[in-house]
């Protein structure tokens, strides 16, 4: 039942068969949506022609405002206007405190791991704020494309950890979007460049955004993008450049550290404007209204600015070196380096990256838009609008995954830069005689001590038959899917009694919480949860039906005998009839039933695919 619909060369599928898909770059400062139309990917403007949507959400008593309008209100209404929420998503209050950034918000002190920002519309989590941004972009795409999106690709920093990825996916779910894939931002950028030109070889992507930094090194070969290594800092970006400049201004102007939220916002605004001006000018005048009513006049020149930001750039250069080492390459082997993210407009950044790689950085595609464009290309392939042979992305996990062992140490199960999807298992045993339960602690990070890594999940395996210490064989399996998301299973093997538990790390937001938010948001929009569920199941059912039909037409005769075909078609008809009804559960069941019935057919098709693919290879076996 493969859904990859391949049309004949030069003959595009009929317009009504084209699935609508979009790529979304959910950025710290700005967000964008792009889509492929008539074979070309481009970002979509709002009705006033603006492509960039400021990632700023303002919560008033009676409305949620997203974008430019919210941004301009930020200085006047700092507490209820949330910007740079990407720096908060998937983080706990402790992490946020550790980031060192002084955030101009008030956080609700609750017993949950998820920070909630106190606004005039009530307390909101970063996931909800992100969902608002996603929804605006999805509506924009739907109004331009004239139909409902069947799926989106959302980009995340390559260096985002498990928790941050899951939170981003939760935000999409809250916004009612089907996520085809979470795509790493540098990989998306490489895609946008790689399809543009004939570019086989090793490429580096340096992505310095508003709040995150990524470096990825890829090997591109005949349409296959293989990420060799990735690295970065998920809390370093243009915001930090603004902050050092703001700090400098405070010193120069004699502003105290305890300035009000509004003054801080103004300072950051002035710093950001100065930074941007210095991308072209050599010096920039500064005017600032001081809290005491006076005005301050000053000037910032390029050299001073460069000195201020150099330590931050050095951090990115060190990450690049580490990434090169992980990839087993020297900088001279990198053919070119692609610049992504608004902060790469800073001349000093380009200069130092150029020095490191010994080449002039590529800036051909607008660094603000390149990620969204890459995401749109990937979305188009994933929904099946493009032929399957066109391209393939092989990405890696950015941070090692492991388990806590005796003494508070971490045993790495999947090392960083392992290609995904990946499944790895390791055996553990009991510590005491007669031990019947074992507690497992899943961690992410590079350090040896549990306390230095990020805790992802804790769970207990119970029902281990009592044995002497060391006799039990507990197999713990880690599986990371193509979105970079982890699930963990533990099984006791020696006894034949299977004690088994499966966890998907869930952080802060529980399924119940998401469900509640979903209900709330739909109640606000006057939508009905049941109606939505029915529609989702119907979409799912039609997808399965269409896919199976296409498969039967392609190779049903070759792979199925008459009775098998009858069985498959019976299940197909059954689902079609059920999908016409109004019971979402029945449709769900029938869809699952169809998949079960077709299991053998799916396997045969996959097998045939492998044989066909490898057939052209065998000749060279004994070279």
């Amino acid at each position, binding site marked *: 039942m493969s*859904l990859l619909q391949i049309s004949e060369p030069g003959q595009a599928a009929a317009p009504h068969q084209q699935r609508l898909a979009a790529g979304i770059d959910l950025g710290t400062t700005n967000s964008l949506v792009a889509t492929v139309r008539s074979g070309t990917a481009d970002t979509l403007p709002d009705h006033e022609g603006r492509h960039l949507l400021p990632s700023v959400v303002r919560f008033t008593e009676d409305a949620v405002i997203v974008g430019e309008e919210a941004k301009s209100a930020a200085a006047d209404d700092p507490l209820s206007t949330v910007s740079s929420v990407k720096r908060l998503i998937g983080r706990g209050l402790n992490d946020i405190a550790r980031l060192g950034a002084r955030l101009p918000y008030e956080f609700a002190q609750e017993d949950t791991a998820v920070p909630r920002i106190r606004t005039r519309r009530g307390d909101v989590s970063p996931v909800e704020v992100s969902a608002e941004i996603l929804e605006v972009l999805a509506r924009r795409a739907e109004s331009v494309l004239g139909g409902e999106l069947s799926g989106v690709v959302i980009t995340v920093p390559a260096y985002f950890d498990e928790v941050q990825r899951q939170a981003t996916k939760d935000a999409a779910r809250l916004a009612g979007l089907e996520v*085809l894939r979470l795509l790493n931002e540098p990989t998306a950028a490489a895609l946008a460049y790689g399809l543009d030109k004939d570019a086989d070889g090793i490429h580096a992507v340096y992505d310095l955004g508003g709040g995150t930094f990524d470096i990825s090194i890829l090997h591109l070969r005949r349409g*296959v993008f293989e990420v060799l290594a990735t690295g970065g800092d998920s809390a370093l970006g243009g915001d930090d450049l603004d902050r050092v400049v703001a700090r400098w201004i405070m010193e120069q102007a004699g502003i105290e550290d305890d300035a009000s939220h509004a003054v801080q916002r103004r300072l950051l605004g002035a710093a950001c404007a100065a930074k941007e001006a210095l991308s072209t000018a050599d010096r920039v005048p500064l005017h600032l209204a001081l809290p005491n009513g006076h005005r301050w006049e000053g000037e910032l020149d390029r050299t001073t600015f460069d000195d201020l930001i150099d330590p931050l750039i050095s951090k990115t250069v060190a990450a690049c070196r580490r990434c090169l080492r992980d990839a087993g390459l020297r900088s001279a082997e990198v053919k070119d380096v692609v610049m992504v993210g608004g902060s790469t407009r800073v001349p000093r950044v380009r200069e130092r990256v150029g020095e490191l790689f010994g080449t002039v950085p590529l800036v051909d595609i607008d660094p603000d838009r390149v990620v969204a464009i890459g995401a749109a290309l990937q979305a188009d392939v994933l929904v099946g609008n493009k032929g399957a042979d066109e391209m393939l992305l092989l990405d890696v996990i950015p941070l090692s995954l492991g388990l806590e062992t005796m003494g508070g140490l971490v045993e790495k199960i999947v090392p960083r830069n392992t290609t995904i999807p990946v499944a790895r298992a390791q055996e553990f045993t009991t510590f005491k005689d007669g031990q019947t339960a074992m507690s497992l602690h899943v961690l992410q990070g590079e350090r040896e001590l549990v306390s230095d890594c990020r805790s992802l999940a804790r769970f207990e395996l119970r029902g281990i038959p009592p044995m002497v210490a060391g006799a039990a064989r507990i197999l713990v399996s880690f599986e990371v899917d193509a979105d970079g998301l982890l699930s963990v299973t533990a099984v006791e093997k020696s006894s034949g009694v299977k004690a088994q538990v499966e966890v998907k790390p869930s952080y802060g937001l529980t399924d119940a919480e998401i469900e509640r938010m979903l209900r709330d948001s739909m109640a606000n929009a006057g939508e009905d949860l049941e109606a939505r569920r029915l529609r989702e199941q119907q979409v799912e059912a039609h*997808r399965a039906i269409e*896919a199976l039909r296409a498969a039967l037409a392609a190779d049903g005769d070759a792979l199925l005998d008459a009775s098998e075909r009858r069985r498959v078609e019976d299940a197909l008809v059954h689902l079609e009839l059920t999908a016409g009804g109004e019971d979402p559960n029945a449709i769900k069941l029938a869809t699952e039933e169809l998949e079960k019935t077709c299991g053998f057919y799916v396997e045969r098709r996959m097998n045939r695919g*492998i044989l066909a693919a*490898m057939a052209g290879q065998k000749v060279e076996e004994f070279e």
Partner: protein
Amino acid sequence: MLDFSQNYFALFGLPMRYRVNGSLLAERYRVLQGTLHPDRFAAAGDREKRLSLQASAHVNQAYQTLRDPLERARYLVSLHLDGSADEKEATRDMGFLMEQMELREALSGVKDRPDPHIAVGDILDRLSGQADALVQGLEDLLDQPSAQDLEAARELVRKLQFVSKCRVEAEDLEAELDELS
């Protein structure tokens, strides 16, 4: 469906021996992932997605194993010995062990050297040299190995393990130096 029971060499259509044609391996890896990767099934049913995830992860694991000289050696030896190879044993070659200890000492003294970067670089060069020699030895032994060849290969695997571990430490140190500079 992908036959999970066949060995990794058969999976890539390669002869079962230590010397592997790297570009052929990479090419076939791409061919298999081109058919099996979850991106090819992003819009498919859950069952198909599940199958694709398993198959693609299996191919990644196989590729990872055959690509890495140490992993490949371990895997091939265990194939020949029907999975009974136990590499927990350490080598008893005193000369080799002395050399390793000396390298480790040099490594721990690197930070006090006038140019630590160059000092680490030298150690890494020496380790690469050792690894290359061991890999060469494995290539010779593991073509069509006799029981004796396999025993000898196991000893080389143990040594290669040492060298690899030391290399990781040297690389970590180099990264640390980079971060300081």
